[in-house]
């Protein structure tokens, strides 16, 4: 439906036999995919071991906590997952800083179409999307990062800082009580739980829907596991990005071979497991909030 594709792409052939429809472009680097996988696993781990506390009055919470090894077992899993997540966080921040220094390209990282920093275009995109939702405009197409993907990123970034920070406070109260009064642990405890509920509620509904479960993607989008986006998706959903690359001549450089069978199976299996656990968690949360 995107008629705005101005640059012919036929000139580039990744594989002689592959028809144009099966062409793929690289969207995520290997390091990003690996970090997403670790983030995902540790997030599900923290969520499953933490939710029983928030809903401790529910029968399912006792069952889940017992399955996870009682409160000591669950606490151990929670801390191991927290360390994994913390490692992902630190690695990510270091990689971002390193890229800014090595490439010297920090301006483009902070502003512009490749940047994750919210900017006026996002407000325009949101407005156009809402117009499309209510049937008052065409389906908008986006650049490399949509506004909801930026929200995802910053929500997780803020969430990891807040949940991670408060979690460390609660993990080592004797140490931190040297610097702060005891009631800060009340605050840490509150923030840790509420922010976690927000994160879990957000990731297991909106992120899942936006990324995977909406009719266009159902049941899941494997791009974050394979790192490769099919050409038609890049053209339709990220038309601005596609045109940008086509105009700058970067397009051919981003061509990638089709995802391997193994990476697809990995994506379907790991992603499917996380999706399933997440949806179960959401069903339990909604049940607990309602009843």
């Amino acid at each position, binding site marked *: 439906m995107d008629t705005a594709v101005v640059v012919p792409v036929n000139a580039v052939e990744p594989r002689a036999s592959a028809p144009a429809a099966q062409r793929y472009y690289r969207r995520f680097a290997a390091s990003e995919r690996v970090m997403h996988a670790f983030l995902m696993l540790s997030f599900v781990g923290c969520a499953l071991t933490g939710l029983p506390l928030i809903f*401790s009055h529910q029968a399912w919470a006792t069952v889940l906590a017992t399955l996870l090894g009682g409160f000591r077992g669950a606490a151990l899993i929670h801390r191991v997952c927290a360390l994994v997540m913390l490692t992902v966080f630190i690695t990510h921040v270091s990689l971002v800083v390193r890229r800014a220094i090595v490439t010297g390209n920090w301006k483009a990282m902070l502003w512009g179409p490749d940047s994750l920093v919210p900017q006026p275009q996002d407000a325009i995109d949101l407005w156009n999307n809402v117009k499309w939702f209510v049937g008052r405009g065409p389906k908008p197409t986006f650049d490399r990062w949509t506004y909801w993907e930026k929200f995802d990123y910053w929500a997780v970034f803020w969430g990891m800082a807040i949940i991670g920070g408060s979690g460390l406070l609660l993990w080592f109260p004797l140490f931190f009580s040297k610097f702060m009064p005891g009631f800060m642990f009340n605050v840490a*405890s509150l923030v840790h739980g509420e922010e976690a509920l927000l994160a879990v509620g957000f990731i297991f509904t909106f992120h899942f*829907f936006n990324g995977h479960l*909406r*009719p266009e993607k159902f049941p899941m989008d494997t791009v974050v596991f394979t790192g490769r986006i099919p050409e038609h998706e890049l053209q339709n959903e990220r038309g601005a990005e596609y045109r940008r690359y086509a105009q700058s001549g970067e397009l051919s450089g981003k061509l990638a071979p089709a995802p391997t069978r193994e990476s697809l199976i990995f994506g379907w299996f790991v992603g499917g497991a996380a999706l399933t656990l997440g949806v179960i968690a959401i069903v339990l949360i909604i049940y607990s909030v309602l009843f």
Partner: protein
Amino acid sequence: MTTLRPRRAVLALGWVFVAFVLAWHPALAAPGGAADTCFMCHAEKDAKGSAGNAINVDRDAFAHSVHGQAQLPCTACHQDVDPQKLPHGAKLKPVNCASCHAQQVKEYSGTVHGKARKGGNAVAANCTDCHGKHDIRHASDPASRTNHANLEATCGKCHGNDAIVQKAHLPGGNIVSQFHDSIHGRALKTAAQSAAPTCTNCHGAHTIRAKDDPDSSTSRARIPETCGTCHKDVKAAFSNSQHGKLRHEGNLAAPGCNDCHSAHRIQQHDAPQFVTGVVEQCGNCHQEYLTTYRDTYHGQVTSLGFAKMATCASCHGSHEILPASNPASKVSAQNRLQTCQQCHAGASANFAKYDPHANRHDRARNPVYFYTASFMDALLIGVFGFFGLHTVFWFWRSLVERRSAARARKDAQRKGS
């Protein structure tokens, strides 16, 4: 040579015969000579009365009974039988135990059982239901129904029988099965049997009264005293506690032993179910503190059923609970840190400023906590509200688009074909 005179020989043979019969017939050979006459009819196992009713009396059991041992004649109890006029009438009067045991019967008439009988309840326990009839043994006899070791089974004939409990609406349900698994019930099965309490230790025997009877040993007012007969130290500690003080002032809404420990299900103080369950009991009165406790890690973990975590009693104490304003209280300003240190070894004064009952709705108690909670509420409502609507609209639009795309495809196919 001596010759036996025929008359004497017949007589001698007669005595030998009598002796032989006496020796051979077990019913007649048993002690209790005075009962002999009765056992001529009542000894046979399948002996029947004129109406075809069984009239057998186990002579051996009677012989070993407390009454048999005392060589009492049957007529001591069955006073309307005249041994000179046998057989006696088909229907005898009920035995009146009071003719000898006047004091006990008088006491019994004031009990819950006695009152129920008087009120026309034909199944409420009377003397024989607990003591038996011809086989009554002294309570000190291990084979006695009223022996310390056997009382659970004796009371359990009614209070441990679901059918009877239901039919007679016995209070507390199947209390004997509850008692059976309690710490007292289990102790009764150990070597410490004689020290462990059974039903009568708390309820009395001929003084069993309903708990709403002020004279009952298990009345709300008297429970601490009753439990205190064994648990002397606990009674003393409780008596000095805030709860004990309130009770002394006549406030019986203040908890007694059974409010936390239950009556018949009493568990060991460190049994996980008791440790986590008793928190809810505290919450019956201290609702706000239960709610705020449940918001903390302590409260969440115990709510999940794991007991190795601070409960109310861990910080406030159990029997000796005092208000925080009392310097002797475990949670007074003077003692609080030490109380935290029970679990958090090395905790500092700063650490002890943690509020185990922080209330997100109470601005005065902790403003930082209150405003953080308000901010988090707004954040959650904002994010879920915005993305909730965003998602609903998106989903709806996607479905609409897919439907119209499918229709367009179909139209194209139709045109093409």
